[in-house]
């Protein structure tokens, strides 16, 4: 049975999870996928500040705005 999914913007700081998919198109989301935000990769929310989320994806520290984070579906590890 697959675990329930939510979106990255809903996660609190220090939450560790797995990317279930990236929805939507557009230049920023193409870049998001290319930068490493892809299905199957583990992601950890390091910090939240205003409209930004700082996340650890693999060995990369990626900062993204909440509007983009809403397109990143995540599921519990």
């Amino acid at each position, binding site marked *: 049975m697959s675990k329930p999914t939510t979106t990255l913007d809903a996660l609190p700081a220090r939450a560790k999870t797995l990317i279930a998919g990236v929805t939507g198109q557009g230049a920023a989301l193409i*870049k998001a996928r*290319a930068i490493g935000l892809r299905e199957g990769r583990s992601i950890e929310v390091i910090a939240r*500040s205003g409209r930004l989320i700082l996340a650890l994806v*693999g*060995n990369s*520290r990626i*900062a993204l705005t909440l509007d*983009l984070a809403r397109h990143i579906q995540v599921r519990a590890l």
Partner: protein
Amino acid sequence: MSDAGCHTSAAPELQASRTAGKARLSVAIAGNPNTGKTTLLNHLVGANFSVGNWPGVTVEKKQGSVVFNDVVLDFVDLPGIYTLEPVSDDERIAVDYLKTETPDLILNVIETPNIERNLVLTMELAEMGIPMVMALNMADEAVRAGLSVNCATLERLAGIRALPTVGRTGQGAKALLPALIDAQAQQRFPRNLPYGDVLEQHLRAWDDVATSKHDALQRVAADPNAVRAIEAVSGQEFAQVLRDGRAGAAEGLYRAVARRQPRKGRELTAALDSVFLHPILGLGAYLVIMYLFFKIAFDVSAPIMAWLDGFINGFVGPLASQILLAIQAPTLLAEFVGEAVIGGVGFVVTFLPLIVIMFFLLTLMGMTGYMARLPFLLDRFMRRFGLNGKAVIPLLLGLGCNVPAVMATRTMESRRDKLLVTMMIPFISCPARLVIFSFFAALFFPNPALVIMGLYIGGIVVAVLTSMLLKNTLYRREATSMLIELPPYRMPRMRTIGVIVWSHAREFLRRAGTTIFAVSIIVWLMIHIPFGATPEESVVARVGKAITPIFAPLGIDDWRVTTSLIPAFLARETALSFMATVYSVEDDAPAATFSPAEALGKQATGLISALGQSAASLVTIGISTLQTEDTSQSALRVAIGRSMTSAAALSFMILMLLYNSCLAVASVMAKEIGRKESLAFLVYSFALGWGVAFVVYRIGLWVAPAG
């Protein structure tokens, strides 16, 4: 990192011979942002291109050549890209080059600690069917991160040579040269890994006619039946199927060649980020860092600048006069050396220590990785002005020079953001303007440091107001999304910083030796035309007097000052060299007796004392520089002090601050945002500068009436 199967041959000898008649190979250096491409290029060709530790340091193509084994390798360092689907202007430059110029070879630079993500771009580059070599850069960091890469397996699976390198030290860089030549000689093309059954099935239909996988993919994409069939089977859009295919192939390759050990303990980057990115601690740290930036720049440089001023005017000048007198040089030549060379160029050169220290600190911030964090820290602040946090980096670079700052806006993803940031940058004070501020503030105000800080802050306020004005009129829209990668903190090598700082210092000296020298000569000649006339009757005086009515309402009614605004548009600091030349001509003070040996001894003692004062200034808390009125009474200081009031001096500095920084900035703005917009900004900034200077001058007169 495991070296199993990696061929780390000894650094080969480079041949510094001529390139005529030799075979030439063009090599595109491509990779993700901040993987050390430019650092490697510097090691490969012995260049000194600027490097940094943030994505987007390189925003234009950089080229360098080297001769190896009778082959000329022409390297083209491209801005970093994550994919061949560009989003920003800098990415477009890289992708356009790869797609239209067709280099002979690709050097794919990989950030090894992040190899998994970097390999996705490798898949795209491999599609192009160009011989390729892979540099597994930052191999030392990969070892520290617990990552090992089996190079032999990587080479076998990818079909290309993969060599570990350490850009920071240059280790392994030279071994890339024979590998590149070999890749071309043996036509070593990267192997195209499969992108999944559905896609591969359609690609096979073009096996006989397609020149590369890239070509085959384009043919499939242009065939509506094939696209429909692929989308029907996969349930996704064709473009997404392709992206997933590349990502899957990259991940498969990663799993086959890399092993990652779990990390023990907390890493340094995480620990530092918990402070520097903290909403309160981070802002506090930012304010402290910026305070230290200005304190060190002012306090450490001031004693050395004072010494240099004394050295040029108290030693070099009199020595030159004595030599010219001894060889019975014509009087006109002696006057030229004293007035145009020593008075004009020499005066500007005294500000070199300030410029060196500012660039050192700016480079240090960039190389450590701190600067890359500012977009995250300051996004909330920037959003109020309609911008996202990424705007901070070009604005901060503006403190060093507005020209590269405007070019750095190429990393902005939307034209609106690019326009807003570009029109803010010229209000950020660069060292050339600081030269002017330092001189006038020290001459006219009891607490010059406060005045200079006020001007810096004033520039930022005007930049912000300009952005808000545009945001609420021409470019109505909320701040755009932001997606950035924060690099790890890195300890920079002092040698690398030294090379970058030297390149900026050399540029300043080059300008002193070319633009400023040329302006000094022209001014000097114009002051002596018509021959035999007094400076007051000269051509330059006539020009100055003609434009003085424009600036008289600002309190700037001396032709020697108003005329200086013309060359100041070429480069701000030329305003001072101009005035120094004009006033040198007017200075009739008799020369004091000069003994070279005695003067040299005094200069040596003075230098030791200046260095001591610079070092001592580091242990004080406040900015002590220029807090007391400058007691040196050079002819220039005395003359300008007589011809202006403090209110007029402030108005002059405001005009210098606000009207478009210089010709180089105006031309780069025209290139980046368009001629019409650049011209409109020029008019706006002049009108604004004039208006603010007028108001400040009138208030100044009211607070401290002239006379």
